């Protein structure tokens, strides 16, 4: 694996990212431990800017996910390359429980489904999303299952009957 080229790529990436996001924190990640070479911590709606920089560098959006922490959500974006000198970048953003982050679907169309999924699971509403509907759960569902506060529902009761 060409480490020299990767260093160069990482340097370029850092440069262009720090050009786009003057105030954000860009940290080198520990690949052996976390699986990411570069970590970007965003404080505000910087994800669109990150996305367009990544698109320019021909990174693909691996996945978007959210984690429900007790006082906030964390949105996590993974970008990685197709190139031989592999590199993965993770962008994290903490948002409050009521916040509506901006959608990156205008840059990466793939995000349309990924953000729909996050909405479906966590109830996070993305701004500027073309088609924010339920995706996996039924359209008329009134719950957001992956929230930590999601307890037993009506549906689970009958299962509990069998469990004991």
């Amino acid at each position, binding site marked *: 694996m060409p480490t020299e080229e990767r260093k160069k790529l990482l340097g370029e990436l850092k440069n262009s990212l720090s050009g786009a996001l003057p105030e954000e924190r860009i940290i080198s990640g520990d690949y052996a431990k976390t699986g990411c070479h570069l970590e970007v911590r965003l404080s505000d709606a910087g994800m669109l800017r990150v996305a367009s920089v990544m698109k320019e560098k021909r990174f693909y959006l691996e*996945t978007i996910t959210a984690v429900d922490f007790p006082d906030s959500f964390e949105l996590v974006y993974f970008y990685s390359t197709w190139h031989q000198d592999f590199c993965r970048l993770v962008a994290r953003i903490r948002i409050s429980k009521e916040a509506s982050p901006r959608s990156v679907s205008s840059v990466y169309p793939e995000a349309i489904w990924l953000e729909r999924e996050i909405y479906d699971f966590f109830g996070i509403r993305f701004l500027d999303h073309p*088609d924010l509907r339920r*995706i996996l*759960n039924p359209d008329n569902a009134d719950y957001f299952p992956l929230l930590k506060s999601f307890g037993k529902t009506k549906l689970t009761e009958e299962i509990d009957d069998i469990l004991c």
Partner: protein
Amino acid sequence: MLNIKTIDDTTINERVYQLNLGPQHPSTHGVLHLLMKLDGEVVVEAEPIVGYSHRGHEKMAENRIWEQFLPNTSRIDYLSGLIYNHGYCMAVEKLCGIEVPERAEYIRVITSELNRISSHLLGIMAFVMDIGAFTPFLYGWDDREHVLDLLERVAGSRLTYCYNRFGGVRNDIDREFCDGTRRFIDRLRGRFSDYHNLITENIIFIKRTRGIGIITEDTALDFGVTGPTLRGSGVGYDVRKNEPYSVYPEFDFEIPVRKEGDVMARYQVRMAEMEQSMNIIEQALDGLPQGPIRSKVPLFIDPPAGDCYFAFESARGAVGYYIVSDGTRIPYRIKVRTPSFSNLFVLTRILPGNFIADCIATLGSIDVVVPEIDR
């Protein structure tokens, strides 16, 4: 800018009508639902509707200890269950810093590649059946049964395995398995000429697959397409090569790439990949080291708090486990990036303008597994 539209009832007029392909339909590979707007037989818009086999894997992970999620991993993508098993174990091992004996890694690679062959065989043959040839499907199954016999010999089940354990594997492989695998590889190599004569060179098959459902490199970038679907579009991206894990760097194998990006290219990539998998298995069997198959791991593991992302290559593309641990025995969050989820969404871009028959061929060539999309 984006030519993705969702289907809206109000735009239906006399000329254009709506067709629900699925959720129960012989060629949707399970319970996929394709909502299409048709003008005659030409698709105007298409929208995949998923979620009919949503089983809540990710919620389930948050309710169980780390070990108990193991059997679930092979049920996410039931066609390449061992690869998912392998990946989950490696992700957790990475988080906890567990060392795995070399022999165990070799066995994992052998079983994973066998599973990849069985998955590709089924994928290709189901795709050929979608095009209308029924007999190759049974020939493929005939070969696949031999893989399943081998895997059942070592892992105990035919389809949904729970074979890998944290720090190693459950059973050791025996001499008969090694010999059987070699015999199977010889047999499959012999069968390949039949497949090429019966399918690849058949004029009807060529006519049906050339220039259909083209995914360009840019489209693939937009939609995060991975796996054989991407490699059919001229990008040689394979996690096994680009971001090596396990003992893959020790083997000499190629990543088959086709430039065309059409249905035929994806089919050819899968065929070539099976040959490469056979190469890997042969090398692994030759260099199989002796030693323990499982390192000392506590009965129930307690990973340190933290998160990690681990990517690996399943038969359908790049899979990723994003694991968040809060230091307890129960995972805080496990997110699975499944390749079919992204690969399927491309259909909204590439289907319009094609015939129904081409849609079926394209869908078959992407080789989706529906529970993998829905999780």
